[in-house]
């Protein structure tokens, strides 16, 4: 493509007006009429208990109650990568708030009253609320039947333990690597759990009609995957994929939380039990926190070796993940990190152990960054400290070790084209690296922090994207895909790709929201991959349309197709300057020949993309031999942070981030991702602070005490930088950038804190309170009270990275 017209521009987003005027429809906006039924969930107050009995009789007698459903009615297990989660548990509950029954009634009030009358008798079990205990030889098991669960072939659960998966990556000779090192630095970093906090809570309406068709209107970023997971779970009832339809209108934010299937199983279950009537399950804000997915917590130990000249010789990275009660999706987060926890550096000797541990906290799963934010906090903190130990500038140390195209990755495949060095240099220049700034306020000091990042989409090797495309009578265009518009601008970008090839203006293109009955397949909108994957499918479909148009012109008018091109919605000819044929003249009705007949007909097409070069099959002991990741997106970021030494309060004076987008199809949207990612990332380090009590109950499942950023919390200045080193297999060279922009936030703040006041904070979040107390000589960990942010109540420095299975081998 020599000169691009619309790709690389920033047209207005095509869903913008709809959203700001309130015209956009979300699941809860759809009117299902007076017959709509409402559900209330009966939840367990225990983190771990056996269900001895459930008595629903009193609830069933309440006027207005239609059905009360328990695990007896609906015992099916489900899961994306491992079927370990229950629609309704039958014998055992595994986290506080887990559903044990649901009341369906004619109105929400009645359902709520009746739910209180459901009597559940439990036998409390010792909850697994400490990673150390979870991994002990005599550990209480969260899933005694782990060995029997159906799972994907690249997960390695260890029956008889709480280890749901263990990704081991080995490259080179780790012992030799540390012997070659002049300096070795080892330390522990802790990252608690986080919640997505999308504005729109999960909601699903299910209708199992009298013909046996199940339709689900779902606030989801994964319509096809929902259909697939539900079809698997409902197979015992005789339902197959064709019988299930998932419709996804606009969603009010996803951030990973609306990927896969979590509470939607309840909507499907209830619909099936009240055949013929629609039923709605709408999560409260509290349920949104504890019964969907959370970002998992992790304790990580990093041992890094480097030579005096700054060359890294070896890394040993051990990560123990508090993955919660069900890991059907979350174990893949652990897997992704196990393959990539070197960070974007060329390191010859690598040993990574990423261990997924079942605990009795809420289920974990995908969250923007998919584990990378978590491990980057430790790794990028460690990189700074190693640089200081070596007497090197932290940016120079990173530049020296930064990965380049063709370098061998930890799992043996080669690194894709990468603009990491350019990103490092541009960020360093933008932040004024090396220039010390002084606050006018004598109470305040200013520090700067730097961090690099990388991330690959974590997709199964057969995660495919597809697109249907058709012209209308006036030459306007409909694109039917199943990627989800979750605020990132997906619809706009797909339209731009089609517009570029077909020369149809943006305002004459409609991109449809998913409906699995009609739209083309998309695995899921996750992993920052839809611009790349679905973009390739849309591009292929557009090229097919173009080819078909040229073919029709050739057949009808005898003009050789290879002389034809498109311009301004017209077919033109390179050899006949006088020839032009507007698309609208023939894309439905064909071209009339001199004989009076018509050639052609409706121009429609499809495109498919699958990353055929990937493979998840590798040696489980080393991860060598496969090609699990399609490519990495890289970048760098930095922050200028002002700290009040008395109050610990921190203010971000400036943040900048450079991401290698390959090709920014819409630079405005990429910049939007950068700003949004930084704001979200800064929140996780500065004030988002999840708290469990010591019995496993989430005590701040609300915005009163779980703080997400407001407009007042946006940094004074954010400078987005776009680097473009093309991804050869991406549409116009594009690769994803959505998640990446929040990944470096925590580490760059930690590094800026150290730069400003000399304190190294190793436990997230880094709140004003922690900084102020540390400056007073008080360790927050000693005074924090009876709370924990992940499944570990002790001091992380005392954590022993012992695992039962590790002693066997």
């Amino acid at each position: 493509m020599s000169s691009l017209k619309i790709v690389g521009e920033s047209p207005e987003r095509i869903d913008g007006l709809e959203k700001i005027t309130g015209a956009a429809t979300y699941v809860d906006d759809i009117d299902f009429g007076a017959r709509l039924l409402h559900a209330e969930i009966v939840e367990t107050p225990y983190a771990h208990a056996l269900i001895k009995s459930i008595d629903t009789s009193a609830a069933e007698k309440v006027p207005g109650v239609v059905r009360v459903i328990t695990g007896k009615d609906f015992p099916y297990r489900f899961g994306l990568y491992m079927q370990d989660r229950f629609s309704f548990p039958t014998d055992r509950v595994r986290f506080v708030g887990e559903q044990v029954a649901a009341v369906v009634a004619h109105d929400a009030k009645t359902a709520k009253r009746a739910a209180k009358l459901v009597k559940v008798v439990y036998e409390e079990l010792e909850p697994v609320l400490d990673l150390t205990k979870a991994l002990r030889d005599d550990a209480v098991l969260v899933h005694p039947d782990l060995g029997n669960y159906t799972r994907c072939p690249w997960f390695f659960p260890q029956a008889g333990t709480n280890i749901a998966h263990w990704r081991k990556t080995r490259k080179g000779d780790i012992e030799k690597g540390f012997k070659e090192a002049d300096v070795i630095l080892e330390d522990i970093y802790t990252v608690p759990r986080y919640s997505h906090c999308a504005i729109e809570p999960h909601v699903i309406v299910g209708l199992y009609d009298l013909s046996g068709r199940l339709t689900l209107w779902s606030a989801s970023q994964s319509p096809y995957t929902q259909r697939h997971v539900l079809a698997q779970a409902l197979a015992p009832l005789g339902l197959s994929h064709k019988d299930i339809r998932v419709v996804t209108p606009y969603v009010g934010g996803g951030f990973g939380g609306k990927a896969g299937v979590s509470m939607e199983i309840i909507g499907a279950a209830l619909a099936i039990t009240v055949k013929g009537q629609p039923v709605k399950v709408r999560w409260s804000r509290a349920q949104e926190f504890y019964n969907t997915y959370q970002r998992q917590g992790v304790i990580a130990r990093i041992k890094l070796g480097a030579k005096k000249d700054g060359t890294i010789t070896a890394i040993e990275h051990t990560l123990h993940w508090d993955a919660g009660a069900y890991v059907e999706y979350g174990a893949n987060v652990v897997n992704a990190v196990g393959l990539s926890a070197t960070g974007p550096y060329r390191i010859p000797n690598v040993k990574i152990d990423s261990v997924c541990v079942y605990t009795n906290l809420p289920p974990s799963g995908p969250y923007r960054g998919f584990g990378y934010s978590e491990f980057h906090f430790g790794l990028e903190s460690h990189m700074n400290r190693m640089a200081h130990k070596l007497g090197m500038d932290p940016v120079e140390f990173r530049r020296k070790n930064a990965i380049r195209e063709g370098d061998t990755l930890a799992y043996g495949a080669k690194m894709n084209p990468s603009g990491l060095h350019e990103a490092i240099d541009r960020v360093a220049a933008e932040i004024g690296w090396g220039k010390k700034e002084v606050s006018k306020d004598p109470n305040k000091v200013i520090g700067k922090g730097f961090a690099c990042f990388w991330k690959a989409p974590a997709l199964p090797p057969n995660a495919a994207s597809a697109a249907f495309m058709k012209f209308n009578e006036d030459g306007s265009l409909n694109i039917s895909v199943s990627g989800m518009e979750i605020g990132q601008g997906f619809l706009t970008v797909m339209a731009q790709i089609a517009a570029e090839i077909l020369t149809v203006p943006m305002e004459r293109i409609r991109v449809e929201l998913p409906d699995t009955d009609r739209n083309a397949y998309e695995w899921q909108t996750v992993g920052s991959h839809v611009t790349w994957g679905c973009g390739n499918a849309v591009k292929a479909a557009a090229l097919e349309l173009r080819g078909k148009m040229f073919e029709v012109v050739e057949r009808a008018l005898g003009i050789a197709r290879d002389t034809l091109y498109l311009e301004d919605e017209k077919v033109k000819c390179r050899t006949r300057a006088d020839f032009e044929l507007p698309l609208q003249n023939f894309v439905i009705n064909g071209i009339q020949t001199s004989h009076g007949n018509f050639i052609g007909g409706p121009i429609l097409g499809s495109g498919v993309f699958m990353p055929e070069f990937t493979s998840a099959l590798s040696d489980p002991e080393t991860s060598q031999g496969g090609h699990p990741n399609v490519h990495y997106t890289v970048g760098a970021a930095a922050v200028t942070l002002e700290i009040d030494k008395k109050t610990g309060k921190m203010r971000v004076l400036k943040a900048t981030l450079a991401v290698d987008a390959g090709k920014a199809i819409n630079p405005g949207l990429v910049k939007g991702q950068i700003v949004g990612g930084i704001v979200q990332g800064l929140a996780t380090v500065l004030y988002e602070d999840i708290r469990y009590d010591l019995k496993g109950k989430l005590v701040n499942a609300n915005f009163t005490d779980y703080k997400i950023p407001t407009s007042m919390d946006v940094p004074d200045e954010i400078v987005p930088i776009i680097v473009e080193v093309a991804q050869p297999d991406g549409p116009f060279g594009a690769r994803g950038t959505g998640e990446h922009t929040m990944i470096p936030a925590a580490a760059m703040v930690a590094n800026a804190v150290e730069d400003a006041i000399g304190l190294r904070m190793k436990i997230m979040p880094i709140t004003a309170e922690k900084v102020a107390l540390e400056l007073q000589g008080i360790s927050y960990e000693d005074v924090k009270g009876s709370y924990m942010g992940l499944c570990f109540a002790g001091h992380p420095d005392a954590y022993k990275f012992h695992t039962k299975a590790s002693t066997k081998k």
Partner: protein
Amino acid sequence: MAIAHEFDYVKPGTLREAVNTVARYGTRARVLAGGTDLITLIAENMVTPDAVVDIKGIAGLDKIEFKNGVLTIGALVTFSDLRDSPVIAKKFPVIHQMTGWVASVGIRNRATMVGNICSAVPCCDSGPILLVYDAAVLVVGPSGKRKVPLRDWFLGPRKTVLKRGEIATGVTLALPRKKHGACFVKLRRYEGEDLAQASVTVLAYADNTYRISFGSVAPRPIRGERIEALLAGRALSDDLIQEAVRLVPEEIAPITDIRATKEYRMHMVGVMLERGLRAAVERITGSGPAYGTSVI
């Protein structure tokens, strides 16, 4: 969220009728004004009244009056009303400032200042600020009207001296006759809406006397009487401020909860007192940080 609890909803047109209704239900009645606290409590079944008595139909309770140096704020006056009031902005700039930090605009459009002190949570913003003005609560009950000094009003978390059948109809306070400056210092976890982790309010007079109050660091909003006594009649100096800060542990009794540790609260109240004192004194002469600027 659906409200499952059933209750009688009564909307009296007169104060007398309201008092009679509240008296009839006794402790089983709750008075509704803004409802930002009450409705969420009912929705979560934390409060289960037999009757909700909505006083929004009673004429005259929505007034902000300033007469002869006395300010009266009716029970239906919202934080947004206060924020938009020219009298408050001009004569009580520290109250104006406080209203900008209470919750968010949406909440402020409904929530009332009198409701805030009736809820009586230790972290309320209205309590400490009214305390430094020696405000009083106007109460009407079966046996007539009474006026309760705010320092006697709070009994503990969510407990006031309001008796069975009584309704708070307003708060009243006098504009200090002496030249003065004030500062409200609120510790928050971030820049968005938040409940106070701790708050310090300082009212400083040109004659070197001071009124000081604290929020979120005791079971109820409190005055710092020992510190006031220490400072009385003395011009502010670095040494004097440090003396005052040293008295903080004797004044407050913070606890560790989800919003902060007692250690942080104790430390921060000292810092906030120091900065609040300085700002309040500077403001007497019109210097110092403008009202509305956070000093922490």
